């Protein structure tokens, strides 16, 4: 059992508040991703959990034990660093054995556990080498092997893939996911890469300015962003947002002269003439070359063939939208088209606060 509970954790650096009173519970064996742009406080939060930063306020509990004042070595954690932090003056073997030596494990056990960790990461033939003789990808594997060799209840990962090139990152992502599933440790994984977050996490905590904006399953975060920021941060392309104005009857909104019905549950919260965001993802928009009922007229600006599909940039009024179309759909810049939104995929957000309306 390793449940991690954060209670009002706050970290300040001088005037700057890096982590603003965050409370979050990470369940036993859960894979939690902290996702956000750089400077959002995700790494600081992770370092607070590791004990590398002293919190200014709040408590951190691991397994029900208050570890807020404990040094890193007494927290029962392990960590993979962004720069890997593989010790350059030790062989790969000694690097992986480091944590076990600190625990004063017998030599035989150390050898056996180093061997099995190395095998898990396919680096067993590198054990005698020094880090300087390894490639970036190999060093990354050593860092992960070192972290899992100690079999800590909690594994912290600080952007472990961000220093790899794109192809290697793709490969490592899948491998890490498999590996971490087997480990059954509680994992907290920091990244700024939304694809990584979506593909790996059980839950994603999206952070901005030291706060968690939404913490939910990847699919929920993707489909139902709690805020404008999340929709525009997650997904490629990001969610489209159009300005909509609530009509007098409150049963519909006007989007650039087109009327779109409003779900009653949302309509009941609103006043007439309020401005809203209409959020819709590129894959939920159908592009038609002829007008049809309930469509919005638009103009094609850019056509980007991406192989599996084409990505259109279209203009509606003075707003720009991204639209996915079939790879064989024939559209050309300047062409007039009509857009149909999948009604059940439309999300409504308050234009002033950016918060999602449900």
């Amino acid at each position, binding site marked *: 059992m390793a449940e991690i509970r954060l209670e009002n954790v706050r970290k300040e*650096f001088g005037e700057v508040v890096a982590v603003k009173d965050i409370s979050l519970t990470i369940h036993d064996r859960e894979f939690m991703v902290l996702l956000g742009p750089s400077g959002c406080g995700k790494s600081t939060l992770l370092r607070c959990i*590791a*004990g*590398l930063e002293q919190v200014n306020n709040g408590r951190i509990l691991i397994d029900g034990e208050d570890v807020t004042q404990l*040094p*890193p*070595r007494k927290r029962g*954690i*392990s*960590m993979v*660093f*962004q*720069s890997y*932090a593989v*010790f*350059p*003056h030790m062989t790969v073997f000694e690097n992986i054995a*480091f*944590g076990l030596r*600190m*625990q004063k494990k017998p030599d035989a056990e150390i050898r056996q556990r180093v061997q099995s960790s190395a095998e898990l990461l396919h680096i067993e033939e590198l054990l005698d080498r020094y880090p300087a003789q390894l490639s970036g990808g190999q060093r990354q594997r050593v860092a992960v092997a*070192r972290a899992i060799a*100690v079999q800590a209840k909690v594994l*912290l990962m600080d952007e472990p893939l961000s220093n790899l090139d794109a192809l290697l990152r793709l490969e490592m992502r899948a491998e890490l996911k498999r590996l971490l599933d087997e480990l059954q440790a509680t994992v907290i994984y920091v990244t700024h890469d939304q694809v990584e977050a979506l593909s790996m996490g059980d839950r994603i905590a999206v952070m901005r300015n030291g706060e968690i904006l939404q913490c939910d399953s990847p699919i929920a975060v993707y489909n139902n962003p709690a805020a404008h920021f999340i929709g525009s941060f997650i997904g490629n392309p990001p969610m489209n947002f159009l300005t909509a104005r609530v009509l007098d009857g409150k049963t519909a909104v006007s989007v650039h002269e087109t009327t779109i019905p409003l779900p009653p549950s949302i309509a009941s919260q609103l006043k007439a003439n309020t401005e809203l965001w209409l959020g819709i993802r590129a894959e939920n928009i159908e592009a038609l070359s002829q007008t049809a009922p309930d469509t919005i007229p638009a103009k094609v600006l850019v056509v980007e063939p991406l192989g599996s599909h084409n990505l259109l940039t279209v203009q509606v009024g003075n707003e720009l939208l991204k639209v996915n179309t079939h790879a064989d759909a024939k559209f050309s810049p300047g062409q007039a088209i009509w857009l149909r939104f999948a009604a059940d995929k439309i999300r409504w957000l308050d234009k002033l606060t950016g918060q999602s309306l449900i």
Partner: protein
Amino acid sequence: MSSKRTWFSSRSLLYVVALLIALYILVPIYLITISAFSPRNAVFDYPKPFFPKAFSVETLSFFLNSFGVLESVQMSIIVAILTLVLSLLIGAPAGYTLARYVFVGKDSYRLAILSTRAFPIVILAIPLAVTFIRWDLDDTAIGVALLHTAMALPTTILVTSSVFVSVSKELEEAAMVLGCSRFGAFRRVALPLALPGLAASAIFTFVLSWNEVFAAAILTLQNPTLPARLVVQLNQSPLPFKFAGGFFILVPAIVFMLFVRRYLFTLWGVKLK
């Protein structure tokens, strides 16, 4: 295109200039070396040979056996070792602190250390000599070493700081996460990795102390360091004594340069920032 024709871009001229400057630096070193290794009588020869006719350690052994020279060599070594130990013991923690911690007053401390370079430290020997007589530290190795440490300390602090900066902080953090205490992480990770740089800093300090003349001559009387003895006796000394002495204090400098080649720019290239 026109840049290709300027005088300096012309390769062969560049080589000639480079070579001339190298000769300016190397030839005098060569000359003092052949003088020091000439037989004692040959030192007085005139005209002087530009290539040695005979190789001999007679002149050097004459120098080393002259009154008090060996004692002064010993004194110089003791002072230099005391200086390097003191500088590292006092300076390295400060360098580590500048490299690792964020704290109020860091910039002021750094600026204060940098600004010591704008002061002529050697002349501090005069007021210190007066104080040392009162403290019974005059004419002692520790007295000279204290002043040499004051000279070396700012450099030691700045150099060790840049040495520790080059050892990533994450390495120590990784060690802490994997079970080390704060000090354990320093001892097992930062220290071994910083060792070559710290050694370079120590050698630098050694040579600084070995070379220093003015303060050593002021602070000692009966137990001078080698440069202090030389500078006082130089006028009354015969040529072989001078040349051998000059060569003898020159050698550690050249050996030293071999050792710290890699750290040349860390040691002297520190920028005023």
